[in-house]
């Protein structure tokens, strides 16, 4: 077996050193009844690279990869071009096969990129400080609500109807078990909800997504002021982080916590994971934050260096009183994010964002003229909602038969709401060509006829 270096002779000699006759005797503490004597049933013996590749490549071949067809899917996961050097760098063994930087003297590389990551996240969100990542946007959202509960010592979260249903559901699941209250406003495709009416003196936070799940972009400044006046915190969720290259950042609108899905920068679609949760807040709340933090310091010779810091918030020290149970986070995805963002820089990131918006405007204009298609979103970034004259899920399946991934039917994420059945979320990014857009327009025309 190519991954196992011990030879039979090694094993015999090592057993002799230990002073036992066989490996089985090392397992003598296992109750007799629980010892398996035969190899696991049904699993073939070890296999070479060729055989394993054949098996898994066969599964891969049964999927339609988004890059091979015109694709307009979003709803919290976005297909962007990732520069070739990103994947090259993250596969360097010193990054890929290292672990959490518990020994700072031999993990300055990881610590420094996490410090850069934290800075980039703070800059793009317009916040003071960010952590070294959480699992994804949805779990970050739930963590933010629990942090707001700690900060305000209240226990009721108000969620916008424009929040991604997965973010809402993860928050609700945590609420059920952790024991806090959630008021989730109904789905809000038109952007007309009045969240202030839902706030009372028990409200710890209001969570809004920008751009919203249905696409609208909103100025949250007034909402932030109103939420603060009630003694609550404003949490802003960003499911498409590229939007921060164009829009006024949540920090400038008065957000207290910003959570985001960072997948768009540096990370592939990966059928939904692994992704990277971004989490940023104000300096004054830093000791309430979940997750790891890297801080700057000096070494014994006075040279600048980095360490994990403020660890007393975390589970390995604080145990049942920790701010979160999180341990392993999304280190390598955060590295991919950092490298991609470094490659883009100020100019590149802003251009990428403008390009995305331009493509979406172009697509919206193209689709709006079609019979049976109405663009619902009056404002948007790179994703918008259209109302079709037929159920969106049926239309999407028809399009898929013609080799077009035409969008995400709202009903897939808001099932059971008849009023939303005709709504389709459509995204355009820098990867979409004019030909892609024509293909979608033609496909829709056919599917709706």
């Amino acid at each position, binding site marked *: 077996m190519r991954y*196992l270096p011990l030879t039979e002779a090694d*094993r015999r000699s090592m057993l002799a050193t230990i002073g036992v006759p066989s490996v089985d005797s090392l397992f003598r503490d296992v109750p007799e*009844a629980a010892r398996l004597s035969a190899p696991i049933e049904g699993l073939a013996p070890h296999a070479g690279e060729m055989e394993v590749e054949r098996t898994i490549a066969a599964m891969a071949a049964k999927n339609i990869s988004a890059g091979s067809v015109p694709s307009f899917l979003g709803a919290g996961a976005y297909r962007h071009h990732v520069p070739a050097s990103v994947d090259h760098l993250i596969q360097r063994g010193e990054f890929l096969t290292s672990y959490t930087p518990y020994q700072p003297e031999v993990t*300055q590389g990881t610590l420094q990129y996490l410090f850069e990551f934290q800075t980039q996240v703070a800059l793009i969100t317009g916040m003071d400080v960010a952590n070294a990542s959480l699992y994804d946007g949805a779990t970050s959202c739930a963590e933010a609500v629990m942090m707001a509960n700690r900060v305000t010592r209240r226990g009721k979260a108000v969620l916008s109807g424009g929040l991604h249903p997965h973010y809402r559901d993860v928050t609700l699941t945590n609420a059920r*078990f952790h024991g806090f209250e959630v008021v989730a406003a109904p789905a809000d495709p038109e952007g007309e909800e009045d969240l202030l009416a839902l706030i009372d003196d028990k409200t710890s936070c209001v969570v809004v997504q920008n751009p919203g799940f249905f696409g609208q972009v909103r100025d949250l400044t007034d909402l932030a002021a109103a939420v603060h006046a009630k003694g609550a915190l404003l949490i802003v969720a960003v499911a498409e982080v590229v939007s921060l290259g*164009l829009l006024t950042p949540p920090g400038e609108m008065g957000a207290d916590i910003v959570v985001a899905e960072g997948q768009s920068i540096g990370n592939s679609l*990966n059928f939904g994971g692994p992704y990277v949760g971004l989490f940023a807040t104000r300096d004054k709340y830093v000791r309430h934050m979940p997750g790891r933090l890297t801080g700057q310091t000096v070494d014994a010779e006075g040279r600048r260096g980095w360490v994990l810091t403020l660890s007393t918030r975390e589970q390995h020290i604080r145990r049942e009183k920790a701010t979160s149970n999180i341990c392993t*986070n999304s280190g390598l995805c955060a590295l991919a994010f950092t490298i991609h963002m470094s490659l883009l820089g100020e100019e590149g990131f802003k251009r990428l964002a403008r390009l995305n918006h331009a493509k979406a405007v172009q697509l919206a204009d193209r689709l709006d003229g079609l019979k049976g298609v109405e663009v619902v979103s009056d404002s948007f970034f790179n994703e918008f909602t259209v109302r079709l004259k037929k159920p969106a899920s049926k239309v999407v399946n028809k399009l898929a038969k013609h080799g077009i991934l035409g969008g995400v039917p709202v009903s897939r994420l808001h099932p059971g709401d008849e009023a939303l059945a005709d709504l389709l979320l459509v995204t355009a990014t820098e990867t979409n060509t004019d030909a892609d857009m024509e293909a979608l327009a033609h496909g829709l025309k056919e599917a709706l006829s």
Partner: protein
Amino acid sequence: MNTQGRKTHIDTLGVEGGNAASAAAGTISGNRALMLEEPLIFEQDSPGTTGVDLPEPPTFKPRLGKVRERGTIGLPGLSEPEVIRHYTRLSQKNFAIDSGLYPLGSCTMKHNPRLNEKLARLPGLSDIHPMQPERTVQGALELIDTLAHWLKTLTGMPAVAMSPAAGAHGELCGMAAIRAAIEDRDGSTSHRRRVLVPESAHGTNPATAAACGFTVDAIPADATGRVDLEALKAKLGDDVAAIMLTNPNTCGLFERDIIEIADAVHKAGAFFYCDGANFNAIVGRVRPADLGIDAMHINLHKTFSTPHGGGGPGSGPVVLSEALAKFVPLPYVVHGEDGFSLVESGEDDQANGKEFGRLKGFHGQMGMFVRALAYILSHGADGLRQVASDAVLNANYVMASLKDVMTASFEGPCMHEALFDDRFLKGTGVTTLDFAKAMIDEGYHPMTMYFPLVVHGAFLIEPTETESKQSLDAFIRVMRGLAERARSGDAEHFLGAPRMTPRRRLDETGAARKPVLRWVPEVSQAEAAE
């Protein structure tokens, strides 16, 4: 006062200031040959430069409603070669399993096969959107279902929840399942809020229990390093929801009484959660189902070798017993006549009605699933069993080769990790931390230290099956040499270590007293000072 954690002191610090690096290295640049000083990416800004060429957007009328376009962000501009050089240099400041033995106990730093990286990047797996119509992702769903099948087979359990994103997230899933099952059975959990957790447990266990609304009650260890069965029985009662037990435990020992523990827990109407962080010690040799376990997470980044990536991403599927099998998070894959499909909502016709909610966005860590499946298929039935055998053999070999110069905490045999404490350093003026730092200069990543908490100054060494005998012998020679050096009275050697690393000991106290958690441009630093 009730303390959690251990004591720390500032190390004596030398000079401060900008030229410290060059002063320490004795070179003009501060570099030491292949060891290169590297500023932050923000300090290499060349405004207007970018490493990505994107087309200029066509003219268009923005549709941003009332939102203004943002001003300057403050990101630096660099070309591609500069960025590649920057991150290559940073990578060279890291220790990694690719470069050497990484005996971090409980973390399972084993070889990460590159075939798995290649397969995870096949466009048919990496470039598929989670919301694509199910018909266009049958292979992806088949892959999840296949991995689920092997995880169930290897553990003997009837069900598995695939979506948790890491071990701690899996714990949350398992404890949520337990709470949901108790609510379903008894109508509420208000009467069962206590969770028993051994003192030696990972910090994630009590943190998870608390996150699920439970209170934590610690169970002591006995003199053999295992759960004290009588103490456990005495703590069981009709207010106990579950026990959370790691097996093999964090002392590297198999809980001999585990079946009796499971019986007692079940008799009390409670559930048995097993922290599966150490499943790599028994995979292919013991099935958790045969031990009476109700729920156990499997860290794919430990047992099944998906790369640790500097702290993730991980993946933590949770296998479940018959009693918990329906209490799963959404979504999950089902296999019907028309192929594979996803149950994403409780309103789905195929839902069982007992799902407890959702734990993360989308469907789980697909990229990790691909790697873990490739690992399982590569090893096969014989290889996986050999993995556990070699991991345990290697740990016992280390234990046998060091126990005369270091102090083993408990009688062996151990499982996949060897636990020592600091009694052998008594009177030397050298602590476990100092010893660890001296290991760094010898070219080794230190073991896990000061954990588990049940022994003083713990050294938890997990060599894994990846190490050859030659590699272990070299490590043993170094550990013996250092132990002898400490006892010979050369404390100085340890207190000043490490000396040859890119940075020497870092001032963690200063970092925590005045946290600097991001880079700030110098201009605004000056403004702030005014």
